């Protein structure tokens, strides 16, 4: 007859990789994957409004971010991209 002394504890989440130190002045190379209908339009609007942001971001347009594949992200990282921004 089970009378557990205490409710079992919850499993703990796996630890996340520690962030690396970044040297001063270092600028990441960022690739953005943007949905044609929203985030890509937002990037356009940023330009129309002449909002300034660092030029080290390039955008790849997707029909929908649902199209994004793991391998696209991994490929970019393998090729030395420092950050990926997926927006949709």
């Amino acid at each position, binding site marked *: 007859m089970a009378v557990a002394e205490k409710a079992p504890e919850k499993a703990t989440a796996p630890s996340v990789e520690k962030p690396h130190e970044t040297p001063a002045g270092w600028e990441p190379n960022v690739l953005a994957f943007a949905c044609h209908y929203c985030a890509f339009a937002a990037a356009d*609007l940023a*330009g129309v409004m002449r909002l300034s942001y660092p030029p080290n971001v390039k955008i790849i347009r997707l029909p929908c971010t649902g199209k994004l594949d793991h391998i696209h992200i991994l490929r970019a990282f393998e090729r030395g991209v420092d950050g990926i921004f997926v927006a949709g």
Partner: protein
Amino acid sequence: MSASKTNKSGSVLIVGGGIGGMQAGLDLADSGFKVHMVQRDTSVGGTMVMLDKTFPTGDCAMCMISPKMVEVGRHLNVNIHTLSEVTSVSGQAGDFTVKIRKTARYVDPKKCTGCGDCEAKCPKKVPSEFDQQLGQRKAIFSLFPQAVPNTRAIDASVCLCLTDPQKKRCRLCEKVCKANAINYEDKDQEIEVKVGSIILGPGLARYDARVRPELGLGRWPNVVSSIQFERILSASGPYKGVVQRPSDQKHPVKVAWIQCVGSRDNHNANPWCSSVCCMYATKQSIIAKEHDKKIEPTVFYMEMRAFGKDFDKYVERAKNDYGVKYRRAMVSAIREEPGTGNLILRTAGEDGKLSNETFDMVVLSVGFEPHRDAEAFAKTFGIETNEYRFAKTSHFTPVKTSRDGVFVTGIYQGPKDIPDTVMQGSGVAGSVMALLSEARGTETVKKELPPEKDVAGEAPRIGVFVCHCGTNISSTVEIDQVVESIKKEKGVTYVTNTIYACAQDNQDMIKQTIKDQNLNRVVIASCTPRTHEKLFQETIREAGLNKYLFDLADIREQCSWCHKGQNEVATKKAIKIVRMAVAKSRLQEPLKSETVGVTPAALVIGGGIAGMTSALSLADQGFPVHIIEKDTELGGLAKNLYRSLDGSDVQEFLAAKIAEVKAHPKITVHTGAEVKKTDGFVGNFETTLSSGSTVKHGAIVLATGGMEYQPTEYLAGKSANVITQRDLEKKLFGEKLVPRTGERFIMIQCVGSREEPAQYCSRVCCQDAIKNAIAIKKRNPAAEVVIIYRDIRTYGLREDYYKEARDLGVLFVRYDVDRKPVVEQAGSKVLVKAWDFMLNRELQFDADWLVLSVGLRPHPSTDSVGAMYKVTRNPDGYYLEAHVKLRPVDFPSEGLFVAGLGHAPKNLDETITQALAASGRAGVILSHEKLAVSGIIAKHKRELCMSCLSCLRVCPFGSPYIDKDGKISHNEVKCMGCGICAGICPAKAFQVNNFRDDQIIAMIDAAVESEEAGVIGS
């Protein structure tokens, strides 16, 4: 449809380029009519473009409307006349002659590319009307960044040159415009068009709250109107979306919204309800809170009119998730606290108690009214208006004006929100299609194209055109460097630069170059594909190339404009962007746009008012229609209705409709029938009925209707004194009951609505109660009526009847959901106890009749029909439309449309409008002989597929299906090219055309390859 001889014109005039006019215009232009759109402003868009977000989904207004504007702007059969007004109309339905006065723009739209160099240079700044005086614009300007057309216009009243009698001052815009588009000598002109029908959608004006000085608008800087607050919230507005006070740019914490400013008020304001303010105030308080968590919103209101689909839930979310405070109190005056800019509100609570409260900022929820010159406008078009200057329509013909062939959409017909306006837009389109059906296709233009060159198997010969865009790109990006760098790219055989790639002469140059250089792929480096891709695709198609052999590198919006003054890095980035486009271009293949035939017939499920209205409209458009009705007779829920709120005879109307349906040669009625199954897809459905017979059709309208809630509370079914509004209606209008003197009717509202398990407003019950109450009081003023309510929701012009009821002596007592009235049987009467919040004590009434205002429910078949067609129902069981704002009668699956109570509770006039809208939308499909399938779709490689069903389960459009052999196949007609299938497929059996994995990977590689030109990544 083949064009037959007719004296009717196949053109339509639409006055007003707001969302309602655009919807009507696109529906008509897409179904074989030529559209003239007359717009007073320099751009289409109307009111919606000024809004930041929309309720109740929080979608970005501009994101939704911008693609529609682009579509209208590019449509071959929509002719936009901006800065224009109609001066006269003659003729009759089918054959009107219209004179249009076009005000001088001073910029030649044929030459202007919209680059904006002129605007940047213009020295004259004036307050921006679009930003509601909170920001500034130039004398040469574009109304807003996404304006359509994007041709700039000069405001002659402020331009330094045009206000100079010699026209010698300034002329900077002329100097800077490389396209020579500026014309200071431009003149107003008048043109004449012939049209078969006219649609009026002139939009609205907003109540000017300065009329009420006690509220302080224009006097205290931190009191703003709700439309000003929209601009404050907007990321492209004067404060770039930062919520701040106009006086000192401080971030406000306590923000108050004051409702019904200029609405529901006979003194210095408008008596009607503006229908949308409760919801937009809720939306603004939520969005403000999302922008700045510190904001504490309070909404001062008298009645919460959250009557639309999912509106009540939205208000609950505002309260519970965002901490928005709602206070039932009247604000009598606002004054500024000296020195702080804060505002002290004097409020009177429900119990009459006065109090003061200080806020950092106040938003006045101003109401809608007809356009300023509505009277002259009505005269021009020869239509009648009601006493408030809105276009006069009837309950049963909600989009028809008093003049034959002239229709109305949007707020000119009465205050309403965006989806109701869009619905009316499609509704008028449906009505016009019916009116002008024989003239369909007589005046539309079709482009003749040369045959496509076969480039299969050829090595890529890519031509790259790098655009200066005046100085927009070239002032930041070194065009020559880009050209030189790209020349070294593999597969590129020709590179050149151009001042304006989109200008007509350069388009011709591009076409010539394609031929001269024998190009088989084209990349243009200029601006965003969202506005220009289609244009350039058409250009290369005209030169004989498949239009998918094109890519656009956006080096303006996403490069030069946001890296101004950083020429070196911007140039490098531009080179990368072009290389990425070239990398993709190398792998491009010509794509075929398949077409499928259309069966020009419709199936309407449900034979109530919605179904019959849809069927008649479609049949009048010339399409055979099958109505499937479960019941043994037509009529649906309307069989129990006698009068509409405005006193129209519903039974008479219903009888006429049924007779009309039965007599119509194109309509086949199947009563006592149900749909067993439907196979096929848009344009090509085949439905098997319960009788076993089959019907072929191209579109489906789901008009499965609703039911009334069967009450069990308040002694319903247990006491003979307790009846429903419907029973009472029957007594009053069917049995002509004359109430006795002193006979007391107590009505309880929201029975089975706005409470679990039906947490929504049934929209019709307030009006039913008031309709019946007025009838009682008119027949015997000495009979008594008490309406016990939560909020009276007589939105729009229905507010008049609420006032009439009060004037007739109907007593209104408010109750709270946690303090509901209590009912007991007391001999031959019932005793009703209710708490009065005004008197702060319990009231007791003995009633001869307790009348329950019962709510609406979706018809039980909604669920099974919904499941059969795989269309989603919301948690309340109503069909979920494709988009609550802009696609209110569509489903995500193409070819299926919704009308009536299956969609949400609504009044009869709204049901009729929606039914007309469904027929308008269906008409767009059925009017095509063939439907084109986009080239950008997912391609399925069956030999790789394991039939794991992941795609089938995640596809939002139902295009993958289990085929006859038990394995997955893909219906490309249904595919919208989103690529979710490609993302999830474990076998990589799906690839989206032009977004194939190898193309994306080529772009990734190009984006990260070394800076030196010509070095291709390994």
